[in-house]
């Protein structure tokens, strides 16, 4: 089974600082790390490989310094990592990003025969769109499931998953190849998936590992390069601002008086009679 895990290097959202004037993030304030949702995709990919054999390849589209997060992926049990990096990829929205990733998967398929399973996190902590998984599937003409909470079972030609539709969780059987975007917490065959803490020896090994660097021209035999980057992106951010400036100043009450105030407020709000 040939598995691809799509990984996005994202800033650590608990440490990152925001430029309140410009409504952007201060990229120097936090280092890039693997998008937390993608850690679950990596872990489950390694578990599937251990069960059925095969390879796990990570693909990431990022600036050159995103290479560090790919080494992190290798230390977590991934066999091979590909970094898609080129100025021509810059400024991409989700449509252009997903197209680029899909074409890289296609290209990888020409080397390794075929890709059976594509895994990714349901969304990223910076973009929050949840678009890329379903869009990659669309570009490749594959079925997909997003917001997957349980990979119930997998064999060489099909996978059974539970996915959150909103009101209920549905069980789906997808024929391979397919795209699965995973949620967290995530279960695999009835057990909770916990992203591993890489061992020191794996971290050292990953430091020496080779990262394949692919640019836009390299994909030109499988892709239409005018669909990459800003040129291939139909959406534009016209303005942005920091959303959390309007913080409140609460009324502060201590101890038992708090109980009375709590009840008073609940009565005022019509919750209690």
């Amino acid at each position, binding site marked *: 089974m040939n598995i691809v895990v799509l990984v996005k290097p994202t800033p650590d959202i608990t440490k990152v600082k925001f430029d309140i004037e410009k409504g952007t993030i201060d990229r120097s304030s936090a280092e890039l790390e693997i998008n937390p949702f993608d850690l679950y995709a990596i872990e489950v990919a390694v578990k599937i490989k251990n069960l059925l054999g095969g390879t796990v390849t990570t693909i990431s589209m990022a600036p050159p310094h995103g290479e560090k997060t790919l080494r992190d992926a290798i230390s977590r049990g991934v066999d091979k990592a590909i970094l898609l990096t080129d100025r021509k990829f810059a400024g991409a929205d989700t449509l252009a990003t997903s197209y680029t990733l899909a074409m890289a998967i296609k290209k990888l398929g020409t080397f390794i025969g075929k890709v059976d399973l594509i895994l990714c996190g349901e969304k990223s902590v910076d*973009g*929050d769109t949840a678009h890329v998984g379903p869009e990659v599937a669309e570009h490749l*003409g*594959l079925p997909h499931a997003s917001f997957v909470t349980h990979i119930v079972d997998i064999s060489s030609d099909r996978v059974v998953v539970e996915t959150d539709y909103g009101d209920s*969780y549905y069980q789906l059987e*997808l024929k391979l190849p397919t795209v699965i975007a995973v949620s967290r917490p995530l279960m695999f065959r009835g057990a909770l998936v916990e992203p591993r803490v890489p061992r020191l020896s794996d971290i050292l090994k990953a430091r020496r590992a080779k990262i394949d660097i692919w640019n836009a021209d390299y994909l030109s035999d499988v892709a239409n390069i005018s669909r990459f980057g800003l040129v291939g992106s*139909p959406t534009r951010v016209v303005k942005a601002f920091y959303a959390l400036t309007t913080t409140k100043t*609460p009324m502060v009450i201590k101890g038992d008086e708090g*109980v009375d105030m709590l009840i008073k*407020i609940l009565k005022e709000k019509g919750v209690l009679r």
Partner: protein
Amino acid sequence: MSWRGILIYAENYSGRVNSSAFELLGKANELKIRIDGEVSAITLAREDVDVVVQQLISYGADRVVVYKVSSDEELANQLIHRDAIVDTVNMFKPKLVLISATPWGRSLGPRVAAKLGTGITADCLDIYVDEQGDIVQVRPAFTGNIIAHIKTLTNPVITTIRPKVFPIPRPDPSKRGEVVVKNIEELNLSNDARNIKVLGVAKVKEVKLPDVQIIVSVGRGLRGREDIEIFKEFAKMLGGELGCSKPLVDMGWCEKDRQVGFSGNIVRPRIYIACGISGAPQHIAGMKDSEYVIAINIDETAPISKYSDLLIVGNMYEIIEKAIKKISEVKKDMLTT
């Protein structure tokens, strides 16, 4: 044919149209003044086609397109919905397509956009037409820290709208509209749709937190798993539901459906009571738009205080247990008198 009018997608995978579709119809009618053309609705249905059509027209659709399917499995197959939406878009060329940003809609929307090769903007909190006549979509990013205004250069503009942001309009039962009913067999279904087999409902959600008006949430301040019952009892007393922060889900103490935060539920209840929750950014992203926030925390400087209307500094167990006692005494008095 030029791109005009608005198409809303009415979510129906279970046999019942999700009420968020009516919110979209309300917003579409508001935008219609600035975007020339009709408000159309597209949906899929297995039976009760007339009921669904009447419902959508009364909530504001000028035209309804229904694709009839013959089984529950087809109704719950997302890629059949994608094929139906793409068919309607090709038929009517709408300028704007609105889809509810439920998990189903957020999975379906990007399939439609990529199939049509157009742009999509996720989980929007607002949408308006600017001075130049362009559609502008407003959405949070960076775990709710940034609000971005986004334009789409291609047609149609596709937007998923967060449920419960726009009100449901008052239905008008006397309203009339155009109806188009198609059988799904008339469509040339894509191959990928056949590679999904819907096996059925695995689990119905115990609670749908975004629909709840009063939420009592617990966090890391909880000492033991069994203590959850105290806070659940308090929530029930107020006619509300229990919520929790992410660490409790990670520890397996609380089910995911009750998680408030970026990776759980984004809620905006009338009253949100945060017990022993310090206020990590990922939690704030899930509750900051609540109408009235009460935080109960031992630490006066906890970040949650900046998003609270009332901060009670103290031991959350003592405060909630005393409140439960007082409220039940009052209730007892009311029963005896």
